[in-house]
């Protein structure tokens, strides 16, 4: 059954590609505006190595930015969320910063960190940080006091309380922050690569755009898409795993 569905969708895709190719070849649309599938294949064939290296660069930048955004977001969120006063003082500031289009700050980051990967990682991590920290704070604040009374009465240390009780209880709320935040990391890295950089998929897209190499531009876009889809699949898996007991709890109530 699954196999037949796959064959079906491949057939449809092939038909669309053929129609697309025919439209471009017939001269109805300029090749600068719409590259033919064969142009994309050709771009991959001629400059595959360059794109692969760029892909590796972007992947590494995104990976580093995710690690930083998650770690800083979660740790800060747990600390800030644990104190009612600190949360009340900090959360409004964080959410106002989050409301600003952060990209306007990118020239500053570039001035400080240069045009290379460092500024991309920094910007990606910076833009992913906010939804993560805000959701973590909300998740921690929403924990019912009875759990903290339990922690104290069984003699849990501060670290144990955070790691073994607060963190797991806040996790479901955290995951929605991680989803949004990780998406923003991917966008942040690709956009800043396109703005000004020396490497990465975003750089190749905007470089070939200036040369009107539409086939190359499309191939770059395809790679960026692939990255985004892969990240999203990973996040959905995470969500499903973590959401399991929470959904069971809700189903019962």
């Amino acid at each position: 059954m699954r196999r037949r569905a796959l064959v079906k969708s491949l057939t449809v895709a092939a038909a669309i590609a053929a129609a697309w190719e025919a439209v471009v070849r017939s001269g109805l649309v300029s090749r600068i505006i719409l590259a033919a599938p064969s142009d994309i294949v050709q771009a991959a064939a001629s400059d595959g190595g360059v794109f692969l290296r760029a892909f590796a660069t972007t992947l590494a930048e995104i990976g580093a930015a995710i690690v930083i955004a998650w770690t800083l977001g979660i740790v800060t969120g747990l600390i800030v969320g644990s104190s009612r006063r600190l949360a009340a003082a900090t959360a409004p500031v964080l959410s106002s910063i989050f409301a600003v289009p952060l990209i306007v700050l990118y020239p500053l980051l570039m001035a400080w960190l240069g045009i290379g990967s460092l500024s991309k990682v920094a910007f990606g991590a910076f833009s992913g940080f906010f939804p993560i920290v805000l959701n973590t704070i909300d998740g921690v604040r929403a924990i019912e006091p009875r759990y903290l009374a339990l922690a104290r009465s069984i003699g849990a240390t501060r670290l144990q309380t955070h790691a073994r009780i607060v963190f797991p209880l806040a996790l479901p709320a955290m995951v929605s922050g991680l989803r949004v935040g990780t998406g923003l990391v991917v966008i942040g890295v690709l956009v800043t690569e396109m703005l000004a950089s020396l490497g990465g998929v975003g750089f190749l897209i905007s470089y070939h755009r200036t040369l009107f190499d539409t086939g190359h531009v499309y191939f770059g876009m395809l790679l960026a898409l692939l990255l985004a889809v892969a990240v999203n699949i990973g996040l959905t898996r995470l969500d499903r795993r973590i959401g399991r007991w929470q959904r069971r709890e809700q189903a019962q109530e």
Partner: protein
Amino acid sequence: MPIIEVSRLVKEFGAGRAPLRALDEVSFAVDKGRFVTLVGPSGCGKSTLLQILAGLTAPTRGEARIEGERVCGPMPGKVGMVFQDPTLLPWKTAFANVEFPLDLRGDDRPARRKRCAALLELVGLAEFADHYPHELSGGMRQRVAIARGLAQDPKLILMDEPFAALDEQTRTRMGHDLLDIWAATGKTVFFITHSLSEAIYLSDAVLVMSPRPGRIIDTIAIDFPRPRELDIIGSAAFGAIRNRIWHLISEAR
């Protein structure tokens, strides 16, 4: 020898000119191995008193001592807590919930597994060790919470209206089984409830508290022989004690 000694305990909420007085010069003592219940109308400060005994709240004046040691924080090795809500960790099985305090304390695995198996047996849940809280009924969850309260082998168990959320039948059954557990373990139990029947059926002595500000207005010894059967609840002697307590509380209003 008393295990709990409370002398001239005062608790006020809110500072300034008109603080709200929750507890007013409360003094009493509970001897080792006894089952003592505190009854009083809702909002009379009985939960506050328990919180102070548990070391979760500090008194405004006066002091509480447990085994001669002044209470200034939770004493996890000496005092076990059972809350009104079972407060189980939803991602842990019944077994793992009971094991949790021992795990935090760093007991070695074989010893704590053995102890938890015995405790689940004691509360009648040996077959449900691998079930998650959402798979258990309200009464079963509270049994798990009782087993967890006993895990660190405290001498004193504080119970804050533990059966209040259960239906009448389950509640009666739980009380009956609690007496068996109490007899088997030889712990001291300090129990809070607003149900007079529950208090009289369970206890060696009932402390009667007035409406706010809470004062102990009388201590009534309950002399029904043990083990007690549920029929005593319908007896004339039982009814007489019930009436007496009821009048004490009404007159204090």
